[in-house]
C-alpha cells in the first residue's frame, strides 16, 4: 500500500468529520452553539479558574492536557495487529466517539455554568449517580497522578537532559504569560520570543543534563539505586501542588500555548515527511492476526479489547474531565468549542496516524535500522512502545533530510531525541492538570457539607489543602519501590503498578459513562430526537457494551496470568476491574431509568 493513498484517506476523513459532522451537525444542529450566549468564563469570572482565553491559547492547553503519552503509546502497542486495524479504530473511534465525547462534555459543562460532567450526571441521572461518579473520578485521577509522577521522575532520573529542559521550560512560560497579559505585547511577537527561548533552552539542555543523585533501576532502594527517582517524585509533588493552585492565566495558559507550538512543529514535520515519502510502500503488514499476544502475553482479540489498548488517539474518559474541568471554564465563546474540543481530539487522532502508525509502518524492518536499533531478523515490534514511536519518527523524518544532504545517522539521532523530548513535555502538563481536576472533583464531593458545617467545608475544600491531599495520595502510590519479581530475579518497580494494569479499563469506562451522560443531555435537555439523537446514543451504548465486554474478558483471561506471576498485582488490579464493572452496571441501570422517564414524560 502506498503511503500517499493512506495519507489522503486519513486527511479526507478528518476534513469531512470536522466540517460536516462537527460543524454542521454537532455545533449547528444539535448544540446550536451561539456567540451571543455568555460562557462561564465571563459570567463566573474569578481570576483563578474561570478566566476567558484566546481560542488558540486554549487549544494549546486543552490539547497538551489531553495528549500525554496516550496517543503515542496505545497505537504503538496496537501495531501488533498490523497497521489497518489500529488506523481504523483511531479514525472510527475519533470521529464518532472520542471527538463527540470531548465536544459534548465541554458544551454540557458550559451550559451548566462550568461544572464537571460528573456533576451534570446528577441533573440527568440523580444524586446517587453523581457521588458514585465523583468517587470513581477522584480515584482514577489519583492513579493518573501517581503514574505520571512516577513516569516523569524515572524519565528525569534516567535522562538528565529531559530534566533540564522541563525545568527551564516553566520560567519561559511565565515570561510568555507576563509579556502576553501584563505587558500586552502582540501574540505573534510573544510567540517568536518564546520560540527563540525554547530553542536556546533545548540546545542548552541537549548538552547539559541535571543529575540529582544515583539511579540504577536494577538495584534495590536499600542499595541506593533509586535516590534520584525518590527526589524527583517529591519535587514533582511540590510542583504539582503549586501549578494546580496558581491562577490558570499565570502558568497553565502560557505554558500550554507554547506546548501547542511544540506539538504543531513535531506533528507538522511528521506529516510533511510522510507526504514527501508518499510514493514509498508501507513496510508493515496491513493485518497480522485478530488476536496477537498483547496484554500480559495473552491472545488479545481486537474486539472487545481494543479500547484497553488504544485510548487517547481514539477516545479517552480523562478527556471529559479536562473538557468539563479546566477547558470549559476558560472558553471565551461557545463557537470556540468546535475548534478546541472537536478539533483538539481530531488533532490527537492525526498525531496517532501521521506521527505513530505510518512512521512505525515505514520503519518496520528498515535496513538502516536492522542490526543496530532493531535486532537481526526481527521487526520494530521487538522494541518497547515508546521506542517504536521514537525510532519510527526519527527514521521517517531523517529519511527526508537524507535526500537533502543531511546524513541519515545525524538526522536520525537528532529527530529521535527530539521526539522523546516532545513526549516528555506533555507528561508534566498532564501531571498538574490531573491534580487540578482532582481538586475540582474533591471540592464537588464535599459540597453537601456546606449546609452542616461551613468552617469544615471551607478548610477541606481550600484549593491548597485539596491539592495537597490529592498529591499526598498520589505520592503514596508513586514513591515506594517494590520488588515485582522474585528474590532471585528481582524486578524493582513503583508501587502504583499494582493497580495500573486496570487503569485502561477504568479510563475507558469513564469515557462510556461520560458519553452516555452527554447523550442524555442531548435527549432530555436539548430535546433532540430521531436520527440526530441516535447518532450520539448508539455510539455511547456501543462503547459501554464494548468496554464492559473487555473488562469481563480481562477478568476471564488476563487475571489468571497475573495470578501466576504476582498475586499482589493480580488482586490489586483485579479488584479495581471488578469495582469498575460493578459501577458500570449500576450507572447503566441509572441511565436506562433516566431515559425511560424522559421518554414517558415526553409522550
Amino acid at each position, binding site marked *: 500500500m502506498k503511503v500517499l493513498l493512506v495519507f489522503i484517506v486519513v486527511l479526507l476523513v478528518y476534513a469531512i468529520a470536522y466540517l460536516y459532522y462537527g460543524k454542521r451537525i454537532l455545533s449547528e444542529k444539535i448544540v446550536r452553539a451561539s456567540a451571543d450566549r455568555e460562557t462561564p*468564563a465571563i459570567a463566573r469570572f474569578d481570576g483563578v479558574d474561570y478566566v476567558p482565553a484566546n481560542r488558540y491559547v486554549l487549544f494549546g492547553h486543552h490539547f497538551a492536557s489531553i495528549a500525554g503519552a496516550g496517543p503515542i503509546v496505545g497505537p504503538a502497542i496496537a501495531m501488533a495487529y498490523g497497521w489497518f486495524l489500529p488506523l481504523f479504530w483511531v479514525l472510527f473511534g475519533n470521529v464518532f466517539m472520542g471527538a463527540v465525547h470531548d465536544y459534548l462534555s465541554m458544551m454540557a459543562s458550559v451550559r451548566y455554568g462550568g461544572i464537571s460532567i460528573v456533576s451534570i450526571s446528577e441533573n440527568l441521572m440523580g444524586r446517587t449517580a453523581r457521588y458514585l461518579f465523583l468517587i470513581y473520578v477522584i480515584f482514577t485521577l489519583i492513579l493518573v497522578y501517581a503514574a505520571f509522577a512516577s513516569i516523569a521522575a524515572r524519565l528525569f532520573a534516567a535522562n538528565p537532559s529531559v530534566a*533540564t529542559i522541563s525545568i527551564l521550560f*516553566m520560567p519561559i512560560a511565565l515570561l510568555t504569560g507576563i509579556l502576553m497579559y501584563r505587558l500586552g505585547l502582540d501574540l505573534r511577537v510573544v510567540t517568536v520570543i518564546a520560540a527563540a527561548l525554547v530553542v536556546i533552552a533545548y540546545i542548552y539542555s541537549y548538552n*547539559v543534563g541535571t*543529575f*540529582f*543523585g544515583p539511579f540504577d533501576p536494577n538495584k534495590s532502594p536499600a542499595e541506593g539505586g533509586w535516590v534520584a527517582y525518590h527526589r524527583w517524585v517529591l519535587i514533582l509533588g511540590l510542583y504539582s501542588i503549586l501549578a494546580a493552585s496558581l491562577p490558570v492565566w*499565570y502558568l497553565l495558559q502560557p505554558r500550554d500555548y507554547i506546548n501547542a507550538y511544540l506539538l504543531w512543529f513535531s506533528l507538522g514535520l511528521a506529516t510533511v515527511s510522510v507526504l514527501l515519502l508518499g510514493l514509498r510502500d508501507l513496510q508493515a503488514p496491513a493485518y497480522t492476526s485478530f488476536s496477537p499476544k498483547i496484554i500480559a502475553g495473552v491472545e488479545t482479540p481486537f474486539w472487545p479489547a481494543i479500547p484497553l489498548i488504544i485510548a487517547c488517539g481514539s477516545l479517552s474518559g480523562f478527556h471529559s474531565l479536562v473538557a468539563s474541568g479546566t477547558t470549559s471554564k476558560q472558553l471565551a465563546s461557545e463557537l470556540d468549542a468546535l475548534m478546541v474540543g472537536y478539533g483538539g481530539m481530531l488533532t490527537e487522532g492525526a498525531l496517532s496516524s501521521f506521527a505513530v502508525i505510518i512512521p512505525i509502518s515505514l520503519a518496520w524492518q528498515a535496513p538502516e535500522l536492522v542490526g543496530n536499533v532493531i535486532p537481526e531478523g526481527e521487526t520494530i515490534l521487538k522494541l518497547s512502545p515508546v521506542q517504536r514511536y521514537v525510532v519510527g519518527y526519527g527514521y521517517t523524518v531523517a529519511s527526508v533530510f537524507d535526500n537533502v544532504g543531511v546524513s541519515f545517522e545525524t538526522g536520525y539521532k537528532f529527530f529521535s531525541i527530539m521526539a522523546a523530548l516532545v513526549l516528555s513535555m506533555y507528561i508534566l502538563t498532564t501531571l498538574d492538570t490531573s491534580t487540578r481536576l482532582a481538586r475540582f472533583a474533591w471540592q464537588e464531593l464535599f459540597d453537601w457539607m456546606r449546609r452542616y458545617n461551613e468552617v469544615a467545608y471551607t478548610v477541606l475544600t481550600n484549593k491548597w489543602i485539596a491539592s495537597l491531599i490529592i498529591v499526598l495520595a498520589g505520592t503514596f502510590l508513586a514513591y515506594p519501590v517494590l520488588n515485582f519479581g522474585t528474590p532471585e530475579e528481582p524486578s524493582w518497580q513503583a508501587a502504583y503498578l499494582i493497580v495500573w494494569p486496570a487503569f485502561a479499563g477504568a479510563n475507558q469506562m469513564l469515557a462510556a459513562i461520560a458519553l452516555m451522560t452527554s447523550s442524555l443531555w442531548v435527549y432530555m435537555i436539548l430535546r433532540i430526537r430521531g436520527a440526530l439523537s441516535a447518532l450520539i446514543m448508539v455510539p455511547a451504548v456501543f462503547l459501554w457494551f464494548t468496554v464492559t465486554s473487555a473488562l469481563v474478558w480481562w477478568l476471564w483471561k488476563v487475571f489468571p496470568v497475573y495470578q501466576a506471576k504476582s498475586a499482589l498485582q493480580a488482586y490489586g488490579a483485579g479488584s479495581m476491574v471488578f469495582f469498575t464493572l460493578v459501577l458500570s452496571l449500576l450507572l447503566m441501570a441509572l441511565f436506562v431509568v433516566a431515559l425511560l422517564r424522559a421518554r414517558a414524560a415526553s409522550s
Partner: protein
Amino acid sequence: MASAQEPKRMVGMALTVIGILLLLYAIASGLMNGQIGTKSTAIAPDVAAFIVGWFAILIGPALWLGEVPAAIRRRAGRS
C-alpha cells in the same frame, strides 16, 4: 487595601530576584561543568540552586504581580 498587599509584593519581588540569581548560577555552573548536579548521593550546590530557584521563580511573580492582569479583566468584561 493597597498597604495590605505591600508585604506580599515585597516577598514576591525578593523571591523573583533570588530565583533568577539562583537559576543563572545553576545555568552558568552547568555550562562550566557540562552538567548540573552529580550522580553521588550528596546534593550538589548547583542542583540545589536550580531546584530552589525554580520554585522561587514559580511563586515569586505570582505574589509580586499577583492580581489578575487588566487585559484579562477586560476580556471578561470587568473593569
